[in-house]
């Protein structure tokens, strides 16, 4: 089950420094909740896309930002990578570039959702 109260430490990913900066700009605990929850939402949504595109089923419940993807999930062959990319583009309304179709981006759930978060905030 995904924790609803608080977040596990290892679900903080790259970009929390940036979210702190945004908190400094806007001020207030409410703003902090809004920014960091959206990062968690991205991770959860990305997990769902992986589950649906790759037919992973209940295994995704145990996924966190450190879960390795490319090279660890046998389902993730080149055709499946493209299915995932297309589904992410549709889900988040973003465009993924060739450079992002890389082992680095797909290294873990954390690196993948961080890429999406960068696109959404950029």
């Amino acid at each position, binding site marked *: 089950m995904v924790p609803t109260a608080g977040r596990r430490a290892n679900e903080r990913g790259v970009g929390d420094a940036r979210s702190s900066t945004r908190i400094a700009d806007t001020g207030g605990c409410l703003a902090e909740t809004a920014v960091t929850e959206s990062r968690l939402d991205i991770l959860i949504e990305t997990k769902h896309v992986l*589950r649906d595109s790759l037919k992973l089923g209940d295994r995704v419940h145990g996924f966190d930002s450190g879960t390795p993807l490319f*090279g660890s999930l046998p389902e993730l062959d*080149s*055709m*499946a990578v*493209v299915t995932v990319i297309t589904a992410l583009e549709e889900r988040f309304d973003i465009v993924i570039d060739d450079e992002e*179709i*890389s082992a680095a981006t797909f290294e873990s759930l954390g690196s993948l959702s961080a890429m999406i978060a960068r696109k959404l905030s950029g």
Partner: protein
Amino acid sequence: MPKPQLQPVYLEGPAGRLFAILVAPAPDQATNLGVVYLPPFGEEMNRSRRMATLQARSLAAAGVSVLLLDLFGTGESDGDFVDARWEIWREDVAVALRFLEQRGCSRRLLWGLRTGALLAAEVAADSASSVRDLVLWQPLPSGDAMINNLLRTRVAAAMDGSEPPVTTAALRATLGRGESIEISGYEVAPALAAALGSSRLEDCRLPSGASVRWLEIAAEAGRPLAPASQRLTAAWREAGLTVVSEVVAGEPFWALQEITLAPSLLDATLRSIHGSFPERARDRFSMSGR
């Protein structure tokens, strides 16, 4: 009830001999409806073969004759993939339709998956085909969407460092220079890529009175159609066609390595062929008398 039989069939296509599997109803179960299945592109065809066969069996058990066609240059048909051309494929479909007509299928519909759906729509838009009814599985709005998909598959294939990285722009440039490119073991000729790339569902002027059953899979049944699908189905309705769309729960089986089934899609398709052409219900289930 005896299980529908699978029979190999050999047809003379314009560029070479075609292989197809006829999934025929038992003679006393046969109706006058014949269906030609048009598979998706490249490796997607292999990954969806089991679904196509299961669907064909369930249709045949309901009295429908189904021809699972290997287009020229694919499967067991003659020709290498690099020799395949969109125009040849259109003619292959016409040959398959004539085969069913000669077997006594006085009504014929085309059932296509992904790029097969594009091909089906193009053939139906050609009045010479006499096809008015389509069953489209996960239609792509355009062939260019498939080209992008293919190029990205090649980019993804380099992720493990087994080959130098490549860009979709560089691959397009290679095609532009008249050179074929290799995707997942399939050599794609520039002429095929160009014709596929310029194929668009919105350009297919289906005949008046045409009926389209549009089926997509999503994580859950009842989700809305993809935005492009909504636009296309709306345009066809505006043109006076009967379009029934449905989103069923399932995985993208055409893209998954592990053979994956979408039972909801099988059920919905069988139901649609039973029920979505109600204006011809009597005609559809009349005994063929042959």
